[in-house]
């Protein structure tokens, strides 16, 4: 490696005497003493969340309150820290309008102690069922508490007002004989 | 009151002096030396020599003992091995002890109780700071100068002593350029 000799600029007398510099520094700090606080009193004041913020991953329902996830397990595969664990199951019998979807998660766990908030699950989801939303403060007293189960995920996620209804359209097409 | 203080302070001084001598750990010895000095300073206060008491603490406790501790901690602090004394040492100690004993004994035998109240009649000459300055800069001006010179010499001596001397071969290498 080439050695680069950096010549230090010669210091003036006032710089070598420290004192004028120190006094200037003290003037600056004094200015800061009277400047308003730059902090946020957190639990009372909350920061504004910008759009596109990646908070806690949640599961969402469609506007009719139906489960969107079809337990394809893509998110489970893509998750870098392996935080997501899905147990596939059948669509519950009390939801006849979703019977043709065939699959729904029986269990959907996200271990928030592993999650790295990368957002790959949201990217990969073909059903737009998993979203990283605005929630950022998550705490618990035990490791078990830090694993978000399915109901908790739906509770956090709520309903998103998208109007795709992919499976409804598919069913309608089937019924009207528009075969693929 | 004063007599009680005298007894307590002299007891502290002497007991801690004994502990300086018998302690095998040098750090303990230094701490007891410090305690002994504080006791002596207390005795100075009883003798109305306030200035000397605080100078003693400032010089001895503030500088000398902390220097001692500094050096003890930098060097080895292993307790001394218990080795038998040499015959000469034993003989000298016995002789010295005997001499001291006779000296102290003669002092004690000559002891006559001082008349109570006679001592406070004497002016506490050591209490006023001005008296020290007057003596130091009139009668003892020459010794002050000599002592000042001694301090200078001691300082130079310490600087020379604590300089790390170079090894002979490296010195010969350097001497070409500088000598």
């Amino acid at each position, binding site marked *: 490696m080439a050695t680069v000799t950096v010549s230090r600029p010669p210091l003036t007398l006032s710089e070598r005497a420290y004192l004028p510099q120190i006094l200037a520094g003290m003037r600056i700090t004094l200015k800061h003493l009277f400047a308003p606080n730059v902090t946020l009193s957190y639990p009372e004041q909350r920061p504004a969340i910008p759009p596109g913020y990646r908070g806690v991953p949640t599961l969402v329902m469609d506007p009719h309150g139906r489960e969107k996830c079809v337990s394809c397990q893509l998110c489970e595969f893509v998750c870098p820290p392996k935080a997501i664990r899905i147990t596939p199951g059948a669509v519950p019998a009390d939801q006849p309008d979703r019977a043709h979807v065939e699959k729904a998660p029986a269990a959907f766990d996200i271990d928030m102690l592993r999650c790295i908030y990368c957002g790959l699950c949201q990217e990969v989801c073909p059903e737009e069922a998993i979203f990283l939303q605005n929630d950022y403060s998550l705490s618990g007293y035990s490791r078990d508490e830090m694993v978000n189960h399915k109901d908790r995920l739906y509770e956090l996620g709520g309903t998103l007002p998208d109007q795709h209804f992919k499976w409804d359209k598919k069913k309608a097409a089937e019924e009207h004989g528009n075969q693929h | 009151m004063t*007599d009680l203080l*005298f007894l307590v302070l*002299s007891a502290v001084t*002497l007991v801690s*002096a004994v502990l*300086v*001598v018998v*302690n095998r750990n*040098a750090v303990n*010895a*230094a701490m007891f*030396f410090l305690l*002994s*000095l504080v006791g*002596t300073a207390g*005795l*100075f206060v009883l*003798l*109305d*020599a306030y200035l*000397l008491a605080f*100078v*003693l603490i400032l*010089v*001895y406790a503030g500088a*000398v003992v902390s*220097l*001692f501790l500094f*050096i*003890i901690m930098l*060097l*080895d602090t292993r307790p*001394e091995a218990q080795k038998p*004394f040499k015959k000469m040492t034993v003989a*000298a*100690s016995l002789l*010295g*002890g005997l001499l*001291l004993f006779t000296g102290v004994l003669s*002092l*004690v035998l000559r*002891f006559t109780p*001082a008349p109570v109240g006679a*001592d406070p009649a*004497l*002016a506490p*000459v*050591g209490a006023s700071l001005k*008296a*020290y300055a007057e003596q*130091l800069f009139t*009668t003892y001006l020459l*010794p002050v100068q000599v002592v000042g010179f*001694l*301090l200078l010499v*001691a300082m130079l*001596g*310490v600087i020379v*002593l*604590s300089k790390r001397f170079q090894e002979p071969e490296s010195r010969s290498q350097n001497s070409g350029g500088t000598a």
Partner: protein
Amino acid sequence: MLHAGLEQYVLVSALLFALGFFGVLLRKNTLVIYMCLELMLVASTLALVAFSRFNGTMDGNVFVFFILTIAAAEVAVGLAIIVALFRQRHTVQVEELNHLKN
């Protein structure tokens, strides 16, 4: 009860001096020997101050200044010598510092 007069102070001073003296004779750690030397100096200052107080003169008190100064100088030089010795010989025990004997 004992009355603290000149004799008592001189007695304390003599005992202190004796203790220092025995320390110098009996101890083998150079640093402790040095401390005992200092103890002897302190004992002498105590005697001087006591004499000065009970005779009503200043000379003893003034001499304490000189003793303190010389003690400080002595400690500085002495400790520097001990450190230099330790660098050379890696010991501060007097019995192992006997190279001039052979």
